[in-house]
């Protein structure tokens, strides 16, 4: 394992590399390819600047996420995008780093209100495939000086550069959390209820649904409100009014742990294969009820008001699709990606056996011109093709 402790050492390590590198921080998100010399950024670590009055933090890419969250908590602030912890879902251990959050553009339920990781990220330092240390963006929250490579690097899974430092804009952390919930709704009513809530002025900061069986039995829709306590209570009551046509909604204060479970997709911890799907929310009922469920037994969880679907299969569900579970999973994978091709959006295989990952395109295939641009960018940023080769097409 190559373990540089500074950006300079990191750039030397990349410059001197003679073959492919497998780049990781805490290696908790299943990103690092199996092949290649392991290169860990975990020791390029530490918060170098935190100005609560400017809502800004700058840290080494290897800084543990928990270290950052603890520092912010002390000042009553937070990362707006609520990054998920992949460990429960993927069964990984290790320490999630802030660089890993950025490399995979990891967000959580608050993404629908506060934007994703890429929206809060305001600066990066990284080492390209030549071993050259580069910077883009900075530490101020409004910056249009030159091209925005900050967003390009976010979600590029280490294929364009190895992150050494990241900067974020922050938000004050709310005093109180409240949840308005509806039970027993059908999938289409649940999606419609979330749309009604998100279309109201009451600043819903989380909208998730666990679909039920047989037209909604056992389903739960959860809508989160955050802010000053009085304001949360007021908006909860208003929201109950907005949702009246969907039935009586419950309102309760608290519920942070439920949202952590939504964020980390706890309910799918026992699934063998998991897909993450970004879709227009109103397309969800038809996709699942007409396109997927009649042909594939699988479970689904909705977040981001339906804009995000987690689809999961356990061993038994895969066995029901085909005698060969890899074949069954590959068929479901193909069905999800072709559906997204038609309606718009994308399906990514997040968890699955190596045999499946090496057989199917993990990421949603892109249109031909974009494939050309992606190939061109990789050749420019990493001419030797040594940065996490084999992932992202």
């Amino acid at each position: 394992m190559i373990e540089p402790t500074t950006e300079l050492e990191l750039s030397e390590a990349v410059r001197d590399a003679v073959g492919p590198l497998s780049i990781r921080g805490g290696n908790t998100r299943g990103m690092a390819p199996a092949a290649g010399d392991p290169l860990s950024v975990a020791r390029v670590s530490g918060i170098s600047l935190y100005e609560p009055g400017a809502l800004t933090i700058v840290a080494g890419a290897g800084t543990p996420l928990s270290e950052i969250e603890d520092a912010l908590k002390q000042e009553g602030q937070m990362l707006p995008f609520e990054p998920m912890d992949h460990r429960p879902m993927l069964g990984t251990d290790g320490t999630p780093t802030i660089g890993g959050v950025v490399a995979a553009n990891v967000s959580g339920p608050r993404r629908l209100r506060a934007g994703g990781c890429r929206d809060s990220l305001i600066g990066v330092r990284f080492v390209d495939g030549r071993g050259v240390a580069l910077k883009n963006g900075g530490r101020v929250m409004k910056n249009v000086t030159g091209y925005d490579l900050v967003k390009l690097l976010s979600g590029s899974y280490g294929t364009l550069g190895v992150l050494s430092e990241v900067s974020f804009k922050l938000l004050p952390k709310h005093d109180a959390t409240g949840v308005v919930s509806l039970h027993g709704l059908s999938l289409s009513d649940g999606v419609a209820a979330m749309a009604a809530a998100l279309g109201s002025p009451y600043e819903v900061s989380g909208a998730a649904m666990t679909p039920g069986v047989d037209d909604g039995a056992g389903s739960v829709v959860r809508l989160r409100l955050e802010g000053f306590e009085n304001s949360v209570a007021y908006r909860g009551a208003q929201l109950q009014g907005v949702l009246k046509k969907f039935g009586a909604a419950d309102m309760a204060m608290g519920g942070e742990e439920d949202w952590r479970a939504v964020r980390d997709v706890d309910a799918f911890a026992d699934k063998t294969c998991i897909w993450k799907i970004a879709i227009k929310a109103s397309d969800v009922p038809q996709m699942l009820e007409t396109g997927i469920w009649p042909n594939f037994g699988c479970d689904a969880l909705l977040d981001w008001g339906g804009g995000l679907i987690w689809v999961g299969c356990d061993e038994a569900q895969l066995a029901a699709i085909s005698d060969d579970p890899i074949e069954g999973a590959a068929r479901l994978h193909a069905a999800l990606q072709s559906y997204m091709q038609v309606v718009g959006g994308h399906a990514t295989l997040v968890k699955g056996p190596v045999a499946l990952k090496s057989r199917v395109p993990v990421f949603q295939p892109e249109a031909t011109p974009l494939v050309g641009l992606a190939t061109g960018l990789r050749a420019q940023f990493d001419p030797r093709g040594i940065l996490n080769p084999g992932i992202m097409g």
Partner: protein
Amino acid sequence: MEMPKPDPRVLGLKSKLVARLRDVLPHDAVIDDEIQTRVYECDALTAYKCPPLCAVLPASTEEVSAVLKICHQEGVPVVPRGSGTSLAGGALPTADSVILGVARLNGVIETDYDNRFIKVQTGRTNLSVTGAVESDGFFYAPDPSSQLACAIAGNIAMNSGGAHCLKYGVTTNNLLGVKMVMMDGTIVDIGGAHMDAGGYDWLGLICGSEGQLGVVTEATLRILPKPEGARPVLIGYKSAEIAGACVSDIIKAGVLPVAIEYMDRKVLEVVERHAKAGYPDCEALLIVEVEGSPSEIDEQLGLIKQIAAKHDPVELREAKDAAEAGRIWLGRKSAFGAMGQINDYMCLDGTIPVSSLPHVLRRIGELSKEFGLEVGNVFHAGDGNMHPLILFDANKPGDLEICEEMGAEILKLCVEVGGCLTGEHGVGIEKRDLMNVQFAPEDLEVQMRVKDVFDPAWLLNPAKVFPLASSESRRVQVEAAA
């Protein structure tokens, strides 16, 4: 400001080019008359002017594609133009370029309240995007000062901001999808009504690329439900330092105002004469606005007033009704116009860490004395996006040059304290040659390599963003090859 010498080969192509463009566009969509092309000789950076070879006004994505294909084949530079409100010269032509204006692409394609987006053609003005949805209780959040005139195409090119970024973000945070035409005429769809990119974040890269990577013809934009209400409070202080400390304390206290605006004495005096907003006599004025229901507003403003009072304000005034709120905003909204009435001015938009506000304002005051030009400061204090207005006399020989020199010093100062050259206006030609102050050569090189991928012949808006000396080998190589 230096511009590349026009290519005689391209100048000689004019009649052939115009004929080819007329083959694919209606007659009136190709403007080649030397008087009419002067309409396109500059944008809002009026100090620099140059009529283009010709201008085209396509009315569909297919027409844009046909135009670009021809220009690509002929090796002719293209300068995309929204409404021409760029303060940075983003739409300034060269004599050997074709202006591609998107003004005729101004329709609404789709509105969807369940999924909270609107899909528009990009020649549509910013304000009319909100106009299309506000009767149904929604709005489009980015609100640059020029929103009455500026086009979404330009907003995307420059990643425009506005007064309400602190809460709602800038263009890139509100852009879900685009249809874009590449320089060779290829049409690509990126993103859509869903959130987040599947592969690389193409949207993030395109937004703010100043029309150098492609021409965006359609945009899917996030719309938001209008808040229940909003109310401002006005706070006057004896010094910039105190006002800066107050801003920092408000942010630290956990309130997130939708806007924190700042005006200094110079601006206040002019605005008071012009708009009679009834502002107090003070060195630094803050307008802080919060949103929500009446009781939510009371709670937030209560906290803000408490913090403000600790800093011993000259005046602390809360709007009691809509009329008073209007008066508080009146002066701020008319500030640029009022300053323009008394003088020519150059408006900069460097951004700094909020903690450096007092230091930077003090240095700007010193520079003002050194250069002998007055400066007014009016800006978005919550996000550190400065707007120093340097007053000069355009009719006095040499004054513009002194003003530009002083502007450069202010922007260098912004970078020195950890900020950047431009927070929302873009680089264009105005800050092009200062890019070396903020970026090392290799940081600029990697950005130019991105352009190499999208536009290998460097035909799209080629003389912008990068210092001419840095981009020369790429542009000149093209001329030689063509």
